[in-house]
């Protein structure tokens, strides 16, 4: 097989593995728990602008630790379903600001195609909007070497309340994000 064709085949295999993890994630993730990860105080502070203190919202960011831990453990276990280094991140929409999302839990490799470093909230990527609106699984490969599969997270009422980003790098970099 020519090198390019081989690379394309590997990418397809990688995406297929990530899709498999994403489908399991949709089943395993507890959306009601996910909604309780960030404290109400931190959510309220997230959009409060203080021109004299640009770090106020970040300083006030807080989570409910027991809930965070339970959800994170599930994300870690999900990532171990992949036969290569992989992160599963939790993204949640922000009810106070339609169209905005925030990353609630990240993992060891700190991989994401979407997170702006340090941002508490950001615009939802079109693929995220699709997931949140339709419940469909979406694959994104926009940043070189990274593949993400986005899948919905449901609560007990059957509503899509968030999404997971199952993400891997084609060639693991031992020094990326060690900083």
């Amino acid at each position, binding site marked *: 097989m020519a090198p390019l064709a081989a690379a394309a085949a590997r990418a397809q295999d990688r995406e297929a593995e990530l899709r498999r993890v994403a489908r399991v994630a949709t089943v395993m993730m507890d959306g009601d728990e996910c909604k309780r990860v960030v404290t109400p105080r931190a959510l309220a502070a997230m959009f409060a602008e*203080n021109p*004299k*203190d640009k*770090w*106020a919202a*970040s*300083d*006030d*960011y*807080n*989570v*409910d*630790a027991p809930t*965070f*831990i339970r959800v*994170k*453990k599930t994300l*870690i*276990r999900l990532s171990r379903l992949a036969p290569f280094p992989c*992160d599963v991140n939790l993204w949640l929409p922000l009810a106070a600001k339609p169209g905005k999302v925030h*990353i*609630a*839990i*990240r*993992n*060891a*490799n*700190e991989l994401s195609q979407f997170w702006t470093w*340090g941002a*508490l909230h950001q615009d939802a990527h079109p693929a995220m909007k699709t997931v949140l609106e339709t419940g469909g699984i979406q694959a994104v490969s926009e940043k070189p070497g990274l593949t993400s599969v986005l899948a919905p997270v449901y609560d007990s009422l059957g509503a899509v309340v968030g999404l997971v980003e199952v993400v891997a790098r084609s060639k693991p*970099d*031992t*020094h*990326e*994000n*060690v*900083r």
Partner: protein
Amino acid sequence: MVRLLWLTALAATLVRGDEVAWWPENVRPDPFGEAVRADQGASRDRPKVTALTGSRAGYLSAQVVIRLDRPQPYHLEFRLEDKTGKLQLDVFREWFHFSEWDKSYYPDALIPIQHPYDSSIPESDNKIAKQTTQAFWVDIWAPADTEPGEYSVRAILRNGSRGRREARLRLRITDLVTPPEDAVTIDHNSYGSSFLADQYPRLASPYEDGAFFQSDDFFRLIHSYHRLFYEHRGTFHQLGYGHGGKVGPEFAPALEGSGANRHVASWDMYDRHYGPLLDGSAFKETRRGARPIPFVYLPVNPEWPASFVNWGEPGYDAEFTRVLGEMESHFRKNNWVNTRFEMFFNHKKRYKAFPWDGDEVRFPDDNAFFKKYGQLLKESIPPDSPVKFVFRADVSWAMERQFEELKNTVTMWVASGSMLSWMKDAPKLLRDRGEFLWHYSGPPPVTQSAVSITKQILRTWIWRVNGYVHWLTVNPGPDPWFHFDGGGTTLVYSGDRFGLRDPIPSIRLKCQRNALQDLALLQSLRVSRAEVSTAFNGTQPDEWWSQEPERAHRPPYEWTNPDLEAVSRVVDARLENIDPAAWNRVRELIYQKK
């Protein structure tokens, strides 16, 4: 013959305004012959220095500034008048960085040169239109066995037979010997090691697929950074993991297994990295001599050595205590017993990987995690171990409460300077408990006066705390050479641009080193803090502290950054506008009685 012809040609080109002069270390020239604005004192005259006094086992420093009225080549040489042959001369060319902040030039990076030195003005690589002036930093090293007495060094600007210029600097070496131990520890922090590949493309590019990070070149370069800071009387830290807990392979032993079977599989990378630092052999060729590094980060974080997936369960404790126990055993076996191994947590909730702040706790519930890790560390290490493990916490908002609540857990505190400024009792409280207290801030940018780097050193000593951390010291920004961001995150530069395989120092690092030498001497001579602060800026030590704000009585998660800035502003105002001679007056306290 070629050289003679060149000199003859040069002689014909020099004109009356050409000069060579010695400038003091703390007044930096610009490329046009004036002192940079931040270093100008009351007088706008060009500063000159004709004599230096120093101690043995220490450096004396000054700058040679040459000025040529029009573009032309030059030849500069130095003649040390020292019959004993003990003194050693290190000469560096000063790079003029163009600061984007104020569209001005500042010298900072110091490029080691061989002398005699032949070049031209304008300096071709610095690319400054209408440059008339080039500066050189000169270090004179006086070993401990130097005979006290008078020496001198001449800087000779070769004009050929008719136009030669010369400036002489007299050196008086006293019988004092600079103590090897510093009065305070000045630390230089950094994160990871990927910056090395970025900043040394010539060194790293021959390697493919990450092989650089396993190469001898890589480890030699890391050790070179340690040596550079060590030679400047500082320590160097590299944090080896990310906010999500990923550990760089050279910062930790390789592990395998999980739960009860988690164990160290290989020490290879760890030992190549740390072995020469922990036994001191990395420093054997330095003037200060071989000595193990005094502090080092451990790779411990919530995801290493135990996986967070097991947090709160027996498996987490088993993974943690077994691997830490193996580390203790390995360190003991290698007799690495002179270094303090720091368990330190750098993550923050805002970076979304863990549910508690390891760095700068703001919410009191987070202290429970510290207590758990303190307990795990104690369970991992035999009580009679000669290996020194410390639990380090970098603290700000909640520090006053943490000093009490985490008593017997945290043993090394690195505190926000602005918040520590109203806790005058804290240094004694922690010292009496046998704990370390450092404070932190960042390096002053080049746009501040050259003497400003001495302020935090002096504050550390006046406050009677053990040390100070420049939080980031190896990041000169994307283009320090022609579009400089000011250097607030660096005190060293890559030598790659100049064909060097090592980092190069800065003027600020040199000024800091010289101040540390002086402080070690002042402490050994029992000069009082009041004498020193008075000499520095006419203050008393109490004026280096601030008043406790009303806010301090409310929970720390209700404070804001402006609250804190208002407090520190009072003290900062007293330390602003330090005149260029401030540290000279401090230094004179050492020698006025000699």
